[in-house]
C-alpha cells in the first residue's frame, strides 16, 4: 500500500513538471525559428514606398495659383456641384462635400506653425477625396460599396450598395465623406440629367469624375482650374505624364502622411 502511494506520487510529480515545462520548450524552439528567419530577410527602410504599376490617377493642387485667383476655387467647386447634383443645405451639419474649402490649419494640422506664409494664413485650401493607395474607408466598408478600381486606382463608390453605416466616414482621416441626413433633392439647384442624385441614408464623396473620364473629359474641377495651372490631373505611374513632370519639378506635400493611406492628391504650398 505504502509503496504504491509513493510510486503514484512520483509519477504525478514528474507528469506535472513535464506539463509545466512543455510550453516553455515549445516557445524556446519556435522563437529560435523566427530569429533564424529574420536573418534571411532584408527589411526595407521605415516608410519606404515600393514603385507601383498600372494606371494610378492623381492630382496636383497648386495653392499658389489658387491664392492668386480667389474666385477660381469657387468656380471649380461650383462646376463639381453642378455635374454631380450636389445639394446645398443651409445648415452646415448636413453639408455634402466633394471638393470644398478649408483653412490651412485644418488641411495640414501636423504642419501648423506660428510663422507661416501669408497664403497659408489667408487663402482657403482646396480639399477633396485623396483617392488613397491604401484607403482606410475601403477597409471599413462592410458591403464593399466603396472600393478601389484596379484599372485606375480611383476610390470609387457604388451608391446602390451603401447601407449608410458611416464606418467609412469614421475611417477616413481627411473628412472627405458626407452623409445624406435627409432627402437631398429639394436642395439641388439644377439637375444634371446624366447623373443620379443620392437618397437619404447614403454616404457620398468625390469620384474623380469617373463618368467624365469615360467620355475622355477631365474632372470638372480640373477643367476649370487647369488653364490657370492650379490643378494638374493624370497618371502618377507614367513617368512622361504632365503630373509627373510637375511632381518632379516642384516640392509637394500630402495630407496626413502619418496615416499611411498614401494619398494621390499632392499640394504645392
Amino acid at each position, binding site marked *: 500500500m505504502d509503496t504504491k502511494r509513493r510510486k503514484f506520487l512520483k509519477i504525478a510529480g514528474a507528469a506535472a513538471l513535464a506539463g509545466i515545462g512543455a510550453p516553455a520548450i515549445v516557445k524556446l524552439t519556435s522563437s529560435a525559428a523566427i530569429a533564424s528567419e529574420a536573418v534571411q530577410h532584408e527589411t526595407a527602410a521605415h516608410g519606404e514606398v515600393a514603385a507601383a504599376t498600372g494606371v494610378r490617377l492623381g492630382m496636383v493642387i497648386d495653392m499658389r495659383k489658387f491664392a492668386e485667383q480667389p474666385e477660381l476655387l469657387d468656380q471649380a467647386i461650383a462646376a463639381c456641384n453642378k455635374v454631380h447634383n450636389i445639394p446645398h443645405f443651409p445648415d452646415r451639419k448636413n453639408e455634402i462635400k466633394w471638393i470644398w474649402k478649408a483653412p490651412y490649419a485644418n488641411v495640414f494640422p501636423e504642419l501648423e506653425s506660428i510663422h507661416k506664409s501669408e497664403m497659408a494664413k489667408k487663402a482657403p485650401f482646396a480639399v477633396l477625396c485623396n483617392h488613397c493607395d491604401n484607403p482606410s474607408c475601403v477597409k471599413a466598408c462592410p458591403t464593399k460599396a466603396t472600393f478601389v478600381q484596379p484599372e485606375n486606382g480611383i476610390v470609387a463608390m457604388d451608391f446602390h450598395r451603401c447601407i449608410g453605416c458611416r464606418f467609412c466616414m469614421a475611417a477616413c482621416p481627411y473628412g472627405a465623406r458626407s452623409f445624406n441626413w435627409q432627402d437631398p433633392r429639394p436642395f439641388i439647384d*439644377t439637375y444634371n*440629367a446624366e447623373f443620379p*442624385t443620392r437618397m437619404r441614408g447614403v454616404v457620398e464623396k468625390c469620384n474623380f469624375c469617373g463618368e467624365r473620364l*469615360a467620355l475622355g473629359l477631365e474632372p470638372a474641377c480640373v477643367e476649370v482650374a487647369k488653364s490657370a495651372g492650379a490643378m494638374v490631373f493624370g497618371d502618377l505611374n507614367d513617368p512622361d505624364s504632365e503630373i509627373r513632370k510637375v511632381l518632379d519639378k516642384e516640392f509637394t506635400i500630402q495630407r496626413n502622411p502619418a496615416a499611411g493611406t498614401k494619398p494621390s492628391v499632392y499640394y504645392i504650398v
Partner: protein
Amino acid sequence: MYNKGTIIPGLMIFIVFVTFPLWYNRLSAGTVPKPDLPIGQKECVAPVSEMRDNHMKLLNQWRDAVLRDDDRVNVKVGGKEYRKGLQTACMQCHTDKEKFCDTCHTYAAVQPSCWDCHLTPAVAASKKETH
C-alpha cells in the same frame, strides 16, 4: 373521421378565404397594362420578350459593369450609341417613366427603388438649367 362536423366546414371557410382575390375579381386579372412605347424607335437593346422578363437583371449587369468593372462600352441600338445606364440609355427613348415603367410596375405591385436616386425625365426637366 373524428370531428367531421367542425373540420369540413372549417376547411370550406379556409378555401373561400384564401381564394377571396380570385372570386372577388370574378376571375379576371383586370385590364392588362399597355405601356407607351417610344415613337419611331422599334428596336431595344434586346428582343421584347427578353426585355420584359429580364430588364431588371440587365440593369444590374450594367450597374456592375459601369461602376465596378470599369466596362463603359456603349450599347448600340438602331445605329445609335448609348451609354449604359438608366438615365443615359433607357430613358433616352422611353422618355416618360409614368407612362412606361409605372404602368406595369403598378399593375404588378412592385416598387423598384431606381427613382430614389435616378432622375426621371420629368424630374430632371423640373430643375433644368435655364441659360
